[in-house]
């Protein structure tokens, strides 16, 4: 079983704690979303996993060993941190070839991954002229070179067009289905709702939640009941917890059955009575808000 395990991981830049006391495990066979507002410490954590930044406290291991001790790390971990962090003067193929050779991978792998991400046509072109979408694909090609069991993506859909977003999303799902460990960071809730199975949420460098997506939504708030009726004002008078909106009522703290019973007894006809699950977005806002208040 191949996973990423952080133990009390911390990183200070001078007086500022970018990451403090972070402990989590990323499991294989699923997409784990790494969520937090911008500046929460997501990229710093990813750089520490890859041995690029040195932790000021704690440790993080990949498959049980620190990244720096892996001999051919790309065969175990593939990562896309910043798609534009490449030498623009090199051709796509030479870029991938140099990376492949450093890990003892055959040159044919460079051609295979180019084919896989759909860049075969532009293999000989200089990377400097690539669009963001093409660079992103090239970055993913580089991450896949060693056919690793663990994949890290830092904000992979940032700045991509809808086609590109859909392509990456499908790709990550496919990798997870193959049993790989996929760890993907984002500050976009909606994105995670569509890709992730599991969530690790951080705010100000601290762990806020480490749960499945459904649990995360469930535990944050109770949801509400939406009521539509031609006699909205009269119904509102019956329900103490109701907020009157222009065409509906929003009722907190009551089940649909209770509301329906009350309105039936009062002889008020209903057009709609719906229990609304909280969105991941709402759950996230609620949790990160709490954590920010707590830590400041």
């Amino acid at each position, binding site marked *: 079983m191949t996973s990423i395990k952080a133990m009390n991981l911390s990183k200070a830049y001078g007086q500022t704690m970018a990451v403090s006391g972070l402990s989590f495990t990323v499991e294989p066979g699923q997409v784990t979303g790494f969520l937090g507002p911008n500046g929460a410490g997501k990229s710093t954590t990813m750089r520490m996993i890859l041995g690029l930044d040195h932790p000021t406290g704690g440790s993080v291991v990949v498959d049980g060993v620190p990244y720096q001790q892996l001999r051919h790390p790309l065969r175990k971990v593939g990562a896309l941190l910043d798609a534009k962090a490449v030498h623009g*003067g090199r051709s796509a193929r030479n870029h991938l070839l140099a990376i492949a050779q*450093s*890990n003892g991978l055959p040159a044919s792998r460079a051609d295979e991954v180019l084919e896989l991400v759909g860049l075969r046509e532009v293999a000989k072109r200089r990377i400097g002229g690539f669009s963001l979408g093409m660079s992103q694909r090239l970055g993913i090609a580089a991450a896949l070179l060693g056919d690793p069991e663990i994949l890290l993506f830092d904000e992979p859909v940032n700045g991509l067009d809808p086609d590109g977003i859909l392509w990456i999303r499908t790709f990550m799902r496919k990798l997870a289905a193959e049993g790989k460990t996929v760890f993907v960071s984002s500050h976009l809730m909606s994105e995670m709702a569509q890709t992730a199975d599991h969530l690790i949420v951080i705010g100000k460098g601290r762990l806020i939640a480490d749960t499945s997506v459904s649990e995360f939504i469930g535990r944050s708030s109770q949801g509400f009941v939406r009521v539509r009726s031609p006699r909205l004002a009269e119904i509102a008078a019956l329900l103490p917890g109701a907020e009157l909106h222009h065409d509906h009522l929003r009722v907190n703290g009551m089940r649909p059955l209770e509301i329906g019973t009350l309105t039936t007894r009062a002889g008020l006809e209903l057009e709609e009575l719906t229990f609304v699950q909280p969105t991941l977005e709402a759950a996230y806002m609620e949790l990160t808000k709490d954590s920010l208040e707590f830590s400041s």
Partner: protein
Amino acid sequence: MIDILRSEWTKIRSVRSTMWTLVSALVLMVVLGAVICLAVANNPAGNVPVQGDEGLGLSMMALPFASLAMATLGVLVISSEYRTGMIRTSLQAVPQRLTLLFGKVIVFTVVTLVFSLVTVFAAFFVGQAMLATVGLDTSIGGPEVLRALFGNALMLTASGLFGLALGSLIRHTPGAMVAAISLILVLPSLTSVLPGEWGRVVARYFTTNAGLQVTKTVVGEGALGPWPGFGVYLVWIAVVLVAGAFLLRRRDA
């Protein structure tokens, strides 16, 4: 290690700056040397008669400028990785940082040494052919001439390595270039104005003042010998490289 050497070879041959800096060094050495030799050959009366190894020296006149071209390549080999962010990809692939740097140094040294030998011998034969028309040429069989020619090639290579060492220490292309120009070209000549015995010692041991002894057939008065002088230059480079390696290990990438 062989994996890393292959990878670094792919990197160095797949960017244009490698070709441009090496071609500049070759053109500077051969063309500038030839022009100077031709000028002397066409106007021998206006000059003090060419003696000893002066024919050799005339054809190697562009060495300081070619050295800077080599140093530029050395700086770029590492600073371009920092500028573009490629260094993070490189370190992900090879997290053993010193091994990565070592691999770069080896590939760079082999590439530039081979190229420097070709350049220096080309500049020598072209230059001497110009001087031969008036019988002022230096023979390759002359005393210490072959050693001095290898010395010129070694100085080109070493100056390139100096650039690489400064690049790994400073990480920014312009900063490393200013340091390379200062240490290779500007400061060595300025040391001649330092006063007293102490000043003379500093001048003698200062970077290329020491290193250039290996490019001459005759040891100047009070100067270091050819190999000790070159050794001193290598020590300068080694100190900068060790400092760069130390920081590469410690710093976040």
